[in-house]
């Protein structure tokens, strides 16, 4: 007899049976694997419309700003080593890009966060550096919002919104990396053995911070920096402390900005803190604040905090990488469509067609990777709350004055921060966090590796033309390499993917414990 569904051991249908659940929970678990499928029924339909709008805006921006400026600004940064992108920041501010993905409750335009990945791909296809001038700001936004400190997040993000209205941009940066500690500061398991030196010493009404941060994107042009330091350098994982510090604060200065190979339009700054006093009201995250909403160890909460930020930002870095991969593909496509070898257009040769198809495939695969990593965040992570359909449509429907007059004061309540702290750090299941963090890492190293691959293929197809700065691809090859390094090197991301997605299935597996 024919069965539409195979019978279970007990003779029942497999659907929803205990046996089926058992099969589905074996490695790789259904819930950790087909994320888009699980998320699709829950997605507010309006997100599609919104994402289409975002992509159209990005393409218009590319046409008007990014494409005409990309090579010009790259050359300018070589001519003038002190160049800083003030004009570009002003332009991005006029286009509303610094508030576009700030939630409406904090005064922003409230576009859905995954749409930023699509935006990133578009703009990075024209210039990864210009995209970084916009995108790094949201690394700090993520650091603010996921801290759970609603009062401080509101204060800073409202300044960003005010900066957009006044035409005086208020851009944010985030500072974690230190001269002797890059990978270490992204992992609680490593940081206690690492060489961190940025110390916050408790004084009356605040902290005195001493130390140096390096490779801080947009440091020189930011108005506020989200800064991480440690109260006890021997136990940094237990004493991580986050601040917001305003540019111009006494004791906070900038060193040089780095002489990078690519993405030169976006400065990477050295930040120097010398007896810099930061008042208590600018403490974003600390052991004291954590204890107000959870009894879990501060070390665990600090790692969750890091995971939240990178789970949100690493799919974006994947999108950057895929944008560059697409830019390289488009350059190779244009070149081979307009170049004849021995009287025959290159594009009509099979090997060229296959290479272009391979490059296009890389773009498609990378796009799927960041989409699925965002689906993890949508379904089981940071964006989940905002994308519950009633919440999503409520936030869309309510006018700005409602948030300004009614919601904004609520964000100042200590109770609100406690609730947000619990929502972010206490309630989520560890397996959800692992899923989001693991997928973000997979997307990050997949997308950026594919980006490097496409740039290499483009430069090979284009021969000597590809070597010239004025042809664009050589800049892409310089730009893309940075994406394999920041937001955790791709090696760290591989280890994190192992830790989050594979190691839980292998009881004897240990990570960072060689």
């Amino acid at each position, binding site marked *: 007899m024919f069965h539409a569904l195979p019978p279970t051991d007990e003779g029942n249908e497999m659907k929803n049976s205990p046996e089926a659940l058992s099969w589905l929970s074996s490695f790789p678990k259904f819930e950790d694997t087909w994320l888009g499928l699980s998320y699709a029924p829950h997605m507010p339909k309006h997100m599609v419309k919104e994402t289409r709008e975002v992509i159209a805006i990005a393409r218009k921006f590319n046409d008007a700003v990014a494409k005409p400026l990309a090579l010009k600004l790259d*050359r300018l940064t*070589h*001519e003038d080593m002190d160049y800083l992108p003030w004009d570009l920041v002003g332009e991005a501010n006029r286009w509303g890009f610094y508030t576009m993905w700030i939630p409406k409750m904090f005064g922003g335009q409230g576009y859905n966060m995954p749409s930023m990945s699509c935006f990133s791909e578009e703009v990075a296809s024209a210039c990864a550096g210009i995209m970084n001038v916009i995108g790094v700001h949201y690394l700090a936004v993520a650091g603010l919002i996921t801290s759970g400190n609603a009062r401080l997040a509101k204060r800073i993000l409202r300044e960003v919104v005010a900066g957009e209205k006044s035409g005086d941009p208020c851009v944010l940066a985030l500072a974690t*990396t230190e001269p*002797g500690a*890059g*990978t*270490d500061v992204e992992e609680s*398991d*490593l940081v206690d*053995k*690492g*060489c961190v030196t940025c110390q916050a010493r408790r004084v009356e009404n605040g902290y005195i911070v001493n130390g140096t941060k*390096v*490779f801080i994107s947009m440091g020189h042009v930011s108005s506020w920096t989200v800064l991480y330091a440690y109260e006890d350098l021997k136990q940094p994982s237990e004493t991580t402390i986050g601040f917001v510090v305003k540019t111009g604060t006494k004791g906070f200065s900038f060193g040089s900005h*780095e*002489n*990078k*190979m*690519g993405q030169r339009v976006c400065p*990477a700054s050295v930040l120097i803190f010398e007896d810099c006093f930061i008042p208590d009201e600018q403490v974003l995250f600390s052991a004291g604040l954590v204890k107000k909403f959870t009894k879990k160890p501060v070390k665990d909460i600090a790692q969750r905090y890091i995971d939240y930020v990178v789970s949100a930002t690493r799919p974006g870095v994947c999108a950057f990488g895929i944008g560059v991969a697409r830019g390289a593909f488009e350059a190779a496509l244009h070149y081979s469509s307009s*170049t*004849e*070898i*021995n*009287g025959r257009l290159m594009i009509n040769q099979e*090997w*060229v067609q296959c*290479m272009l198809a391979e490059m296009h495939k890389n773009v498609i695969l990378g796009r799927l990777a960041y989409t699925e990593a965002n689906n993890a965040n949508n379904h089981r992570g940071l964006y989940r709350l905002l994308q519950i359909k009633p919440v999503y449509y409520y936030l869309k429907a309510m006018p700005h004055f409602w948030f300004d007059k009614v919601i904004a004061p609520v964000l100042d309540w200590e109770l609100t921060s406690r609730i947000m702290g619990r929502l972010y750090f206490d309630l989520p299941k560890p397996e959800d966090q692992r899923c989001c963090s693991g997928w973000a890492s997979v997307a990050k190293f997949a997308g950026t590796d594919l980006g*490097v691959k496409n740039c*290499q293929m483009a*430069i*090979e*197809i*284009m*021969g*000597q*033309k*590809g*070597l*010239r*700065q*004025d042809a664009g691809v*050589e800049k892409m*090859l*310089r730009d893309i*390499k*940075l994406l*394999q*390094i*920041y937001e955790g*090197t*791709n*090696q760290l991301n*591989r*280890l994190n993917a192992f830790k989050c997605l594979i190691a839980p299935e292998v009881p004897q597996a240990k990570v*960072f414990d*060689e």
Partner: protein
Amino acid sequence: MFNTDPNDLKPFADLARSFAVKELAGKVAQHDRYPFGDFYQDILEKFHHLGFLGVTLPAALGGIDGGVAALCEMLLQICEVDASPGGIIFTQTLAQEILLAAGNRNLAQSIFLKAASPKEMLVAFPAYTNPAQTDSLPLVQKKGNDYNLTGRLELLVLGSLARQAIIPARHGRGPDYSFFLISLDNPKVERSEPVFTLGLHACPAVDVTFSGTRAHLIGEENLGHRYFGKVSPEMNSAAAAMNAGILRGAFNEAFSYSQKREQGGRPIFHWSEIVMMLASISVKADVAAMCVHQSCLELERKSSGYESRISAASLHVAELACNATTDGIQVLGGYGYMKEYGQEKRYRDARMVQALLGAVPYKKLDIIQKAVHAASCDL
């Protein structure tokens, strides 16, 4: 002379190594800066004095007659420190070899034997192209015994440093082309500023426009591809040597850094993923050096199909170098991306060297075309 005896090559290797360490090391980033162009005037003087601008050139023509194996050894040593001077030596040798392959010994003697300065000695050449594989070469018009060039040529390497250049040009439609010697001081030659390229910044290239520029034919008309093909095995070996040097430099810097930089409280050298990356770069560097050595042996023996085998070795070494220099940056993390360190430059230079003598896909296709041609000749 093709001498692959290590004992005979040692003086060349020692000379190049000591020169690189003494004269190039420590100044690499400084010589890589925009605007590109006249970085290495003092180095060029020394190159000229030591005979580095005529390594394979016979002594009777003003060279040091070292042979290709010596050239490769010297390029490997120099490019380990900085690939740009290697690019200068490569281009100069390529131009000289074309002249000799075309049988213009007297012309070569008149240029090189009495050259009193690097400018007089240097001959610019479009080293990043195989002229047969580009449709955009200058056109040549013949009036009596005179030839005149019109049109544009991109990336003429050493065009801003040399007094003369060898230019490929076509007489009309079709793949055939001829080589011509022109004076770059001719007012009918317009040179751009050094082009902003991915790497090898101290080995500048310019775009050149000819407007009825008088030219001297090298060899015979329409036989450019034959001369280019004749010198390709030697120059492919030289390109492989350049990338082998870059690879060795990438490994040395990564290895050294891994012992100083700490992660999780111990040198990154003690983390097995870093060790694996170092091992991977080391394997590539060693294989590259062996490919260069084997290429030199092939050149000496010239057994059937040696040209394709050397081309394959060069392509393979270039691929190894492009991959390994990407990992070379990765070992250094953020510092690897900064110009104060050498790795980012190697990442760029390896791709420039890969493009020498033409685009990668066409080099691959050429190997099979040669095989098909050889098979049809055997029938």
